[in-house]
């Protein structure tokens, strides 16, 4: 405990951090709360001298708004579909990486590359892969296809319009799932691989002495011992999933949907950005707070479920 005579010194030394936190974290949070509870708040209007009533109108508007529910739906679908897939894949890849000796470092690097690559750039590459490239003016149809469709055609299937004009919501979501899973893998593999490498090898020797089959080693020893890392990866995966935005911009552009149906794939964060652009900060703040509450509830729920399965 600092001597009370010198307490001002403690505050002085802490002040740079405190000031930065106040300006860039505490004030924005407070301001978000304030704007959310001022009916119809907008910055421009506020500067023009308009006054706003205190109330929950912003929240009601957000909830009543059809598009918001669509955003919620898209976000939820992406979360629920991608987190289990990417976690399972990451686990299998991490276990495989951990069990090979030659080229381990090289493969680790390859698997980690997406993590250090800009997600918009990755999105553009994916967009090209799923795109229908080129247009045949004579027959008035697209005649050059992206690599995914080329592969499908090679095996005798028919090309699908994944992200272009006339594509279905299901096709769009499928592309997003592939992209998000791929993008989420490196971080998860890194965490799980670190976890695997910290497991004492003697557990595996002990299992070997007892003649434990490989599958049983994975389910009864590796996964339980990895459970704290798995829990971390799942929880952060859900949180990241609810904040999904830039990946969709990466593939579909700021329209957040195929050309003929802009906004179809909009997410909650997208909704917040849209509202900000239209100078409806009150609405945006209310949306952000609702998103916060949803993430909070989901995380608490995750924690509760996972706690039962994390063993120590």
């Amino acid at each position, binding site marked *: 405990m600092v001597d009370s005579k010198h307490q001002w010194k403690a505050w002085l030394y802490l002040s740079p951090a405190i000031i930065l936190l106040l300006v860039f974290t505490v004030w924005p949070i407070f301001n978000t709360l304030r704007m959310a509870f001022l009916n119809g708040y907008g910055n421009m209007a506020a500067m023009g001298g308009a006054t706003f009533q205190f109330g929950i109108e912003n929240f009601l508007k957000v909830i009543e708004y059809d598009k918001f529910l669509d955003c919620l739906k898209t976000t939820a679908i992406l979360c629920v579909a991608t987190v289990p897939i990417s976690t399972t894949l990451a686990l299998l890849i991490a276990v495989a990486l951990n069990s090979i000796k030659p080229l381990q470092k090289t493969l680790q690097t390859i698997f980690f590359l997406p993590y250090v690559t800009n997600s918009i750039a990755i999105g553009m590459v994916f967009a090209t892969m799923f795109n229908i490239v080129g247009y045949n003016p004579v027959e008035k149809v697209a005649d050059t296809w992206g690599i995914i469709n080329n592969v499908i055609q090679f095996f005798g299937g028919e090309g699908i319009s994944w992200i272009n004009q006339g594509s279905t919501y299901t096709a769009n979501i499928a592309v997003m799932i592939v992209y998000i899973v791929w993008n989420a893998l490196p971080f998860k593999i890194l965490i799980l691989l670190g976890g695997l490498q910290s497991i*004492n090898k003697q557990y595996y*020797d002990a299992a070997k*002495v*007892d*003649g434990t089959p490989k599958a049983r080693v994975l389910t*009864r020893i590796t996964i*339980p*011992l990895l459970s704290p890392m798995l829990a971390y990866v799942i929880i952060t995966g859900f949180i990241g999933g609810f904040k999904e935005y830039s990946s969709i911009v990466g593939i579909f552009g700021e329209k957040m949907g195929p050309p003929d149906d802009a906004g179809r794939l909009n997410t909650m964060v997208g909704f917040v950005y849209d509202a900000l652009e239209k100078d409806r900060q009150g609405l945006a703040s209310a949306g952000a707070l609702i998103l916060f509450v949803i993430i909070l509830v989901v995380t608490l729920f995750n924690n509760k479920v996972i706690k039962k399965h994390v063993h120590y």
Partner: protein
Amino acid sequence: MKVVLENLTKIFPSRDKKSGKEVVAVNDFTFEIPDGQLVGLLGPSGCGKSTTLYMISGLQKPTSGKIYFGDDDVTELSTENRGIGLVFQNYALYPHMTVMQNILFPLQNLTGKDKLTKQEMLDRAYNAARLVQIDELMDRKPSELSGGQQQRVAIARALVKMPRVLLLDEPLSNLDARLRLQTREEIRRIQKETGITTIFVTHDQEEAMSISDVIVVMKLGVVQQIGKPQDVYDDPKNLFVATFLGTPPINVLEGKVEGGKVYIGDEAVMDVAGVEDQNVYIGIRPEGIEPNPNGVLTCKLNNVEVMGRDASVVSSHEASRNPVVRAIISSDIQVDTTADTVKYNIKPHKFFLFNKETEERVYFEVK
């Protein structure tokens, strides 16, 4: 089940590619471990004792040589088919399973004709737990147990499969001093009760001496001496074995044999008629010398440590290889602590000669 090791050798490839130096961890180890005995592999770290144990377990493959369990050649057999129980140095209990689940785990792996019913498994788990006296703790997790209790769980897990051979890697090194004493008696009792041939590894000579039927002393991958603990102690084959066994350690002094007498400095301390003249190391057990005004060896007296039953006379001699020359005597014997020097008499059967170059024992006839 007797265990036979035949010319067992393990060579580890060099870690440093430039020097290309291989490490011979175990060199040409031949030994037959009789059925139902408790055998201690003893040596300083890096002597190859753990490697030997892991080769017997099958977790490491020997570079050459053979291993037999009874008459079966198990050299090429994989670990799980050897029928061994292995207790790891840090126990390797699965931290997420209860004691019960840990003990049941090996049984649940059994398939085919060995497959057990649930009830049989539970019975065997409880029997193993009762044997090591942890049947009260079945629902605890390993983290809720003391070191000694964890050790017992590890032994129970190794015994529950009814192994042909039980292997223990440094079983006592993670326990505190008091528990160590208690647990080594426990290991002895469990081994006698089950009659399973047991091999354990230790660097603690006292531990090995106290519970083993047979000890194997190793150094740098080479077996130095094999025998009953007391026999090895009383009749060491070389200087290493003599110095490695015994606390406090044996007194080692430099000297020479000349004309059938052993000289330390100028003093003739022992008649060894028939021994060739040579430079020697002289090993004398601390209990083998006692102060006597007419003694043959004169040392500078440092102090006397009284430890209840015994007393330890601490002295020094310029020919001594150890910092001190120590005599353990009954505390009834009075020593003049004010004197500068002390004279010792030497008991011939506690007195060993070793050639100075080879450090091998030089035998002589005790009169």
